[in-house]
């Protein structure tokens, strides 16, 4: 079976499971919303401050949410030892990782799509004029987050204290994504909105580099 088809099947399975309960999506949505509102209590943002700091807060909230919501990716397979079944399937091990990674990226992106208008309302930012470019930055940042997050959730699924360990491992690795995506987003919300191509190229490079690393080393994570 080709890699693309196997990945598609795994992705479909993941999405089907999530759509039955929608537990992960709704909980993550509420979590990010809470963090965004709580942030505003720590400082009372003026219009300029909101434009300057809002994007950073949004990305920080997404990073925290990601490091919590990506946790069940592999832990879910442990209850009935379904990971062994996936391992025995006649597909490349990378397809399992890629399918789960794609599913995680889809979840995060959905949460972001629902949150963006609320975020814009809370911090009084206009997103419509820059929507296309904003979605591009969102997409690139989300792929980076989902790639490293999925690989590390496979790591922590086999460790103790995994709920705490995943953020500790993930947040330093994701420092470049946080900087790149919030800087690019700040540019989009400035007086003369612009898309800083340096950061777009940088985020693309991050995604490509870590997708390649996941392809090269990811399969070792499922070995028995």
């Amino acid at each position: 079976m080709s890699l693309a088809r196997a990945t598609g099947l795994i992705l479909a399975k993941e999405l089907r499971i999530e759509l039955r309960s929608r537990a992960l999506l709704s909980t993550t949505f509420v979590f990010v919303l809470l963090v965004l509102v709580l942030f505003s209590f720590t400082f009372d943002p003026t219009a300029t401050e909101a434009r300057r700091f809002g994007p950073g807060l949004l990305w920080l909230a997404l990073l925290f949410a990601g490091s919590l919501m990506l946790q069940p990716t592999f832990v879910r397979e442990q209850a009935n030892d379904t990971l062994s079944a996936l391992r025995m399937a006649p597909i490349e091990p990378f397809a399992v990782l890629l399918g789960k990674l794609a599913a995680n990226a889809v979840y995060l992106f959905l949460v972001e799509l629902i949150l963006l208008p609320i975020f814009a309302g809370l911090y009084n930012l206009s997103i419509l004029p820059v929507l296309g470019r904003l979605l591009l930055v969102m997409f690139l940042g989300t792929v980076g987050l989902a790639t490293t997050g999925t690989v590390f959730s496979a790591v922590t699924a086999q460790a103790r204290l995994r709920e705490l360990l995943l953020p500790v491992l993930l947040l330093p690795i994701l420092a470049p994504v946080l900087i790149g995506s919030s800087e690019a987003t700040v540019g989009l919300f400035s007086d003369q909105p612009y898309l800083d191509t340096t950061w777009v190229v940088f985020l693309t490079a991050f995604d490509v580099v870590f997708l390649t690393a996941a392809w090269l080393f990811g399969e070792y994570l499922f070995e028995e």
Partner: protein
Amino acid sequence: MAAKSKSNLASSVFWSLLTFACLALACYAALFVAPEEKTMGVIQRIFYFHVPSFWTAFLAIFTTTYGSVAYIATKKMKWDWIAVSAAELAAAFLTIGLVTGPIWAKPVWGVWWAWDARTTSTFVLWAMYVSYLLLRTLVDEPERRALLSAVVAIFSCIDVPLVYFSIWMYRTQHPQPVIGDGGYLDPRMGKVLLECWGALVALFLLLLRERYRLEKMRSEVDGLRMEVERRGL
């Protein structure tokens, strides 16, 4: 067995004495041989340990990555032992650098922590290697631990240039007080700097060797304990 451990002990003592002699010479050179810096005065001498400890940390990070890749390629436990020994030393030398930095910065720049690109990136680096070591304490089975931590070490190493680039870019886009703009280094200062680095590399090699042997012994003891349990002795 007894003869072997005796010769091990003798070589440990020999290499330790040699390393400590190097370190003592380096201290002497840094404190008395190197010329005094004109504006910063005596505090600038911390530079001879601050900078080389970062260089040594990078050597340790390289060793960890090499050990991790070699473990994945060969599945021989000795590479995992090398990786963990070097990772602990990386964390230790990064800590030395991050602690000596503020001691130097406070009298010279007026602040303990300037949020400059290099310091901030190094802190992120430190966090990555500390979390690598935390991961190792949370996985019990040796082979599993070796494999998982090897993947994390490789991902961390790949991230290093990205972290440095992103923080450097971020800092150049936001105005910063101009601090430590490189400048001229007296050739005598350069020589002392290299001597101090040599001493720290010697210390790194000595500790790596001892830590590797400790890890090997630990694994042998674990093996024996499992054997005892299996046979129900």
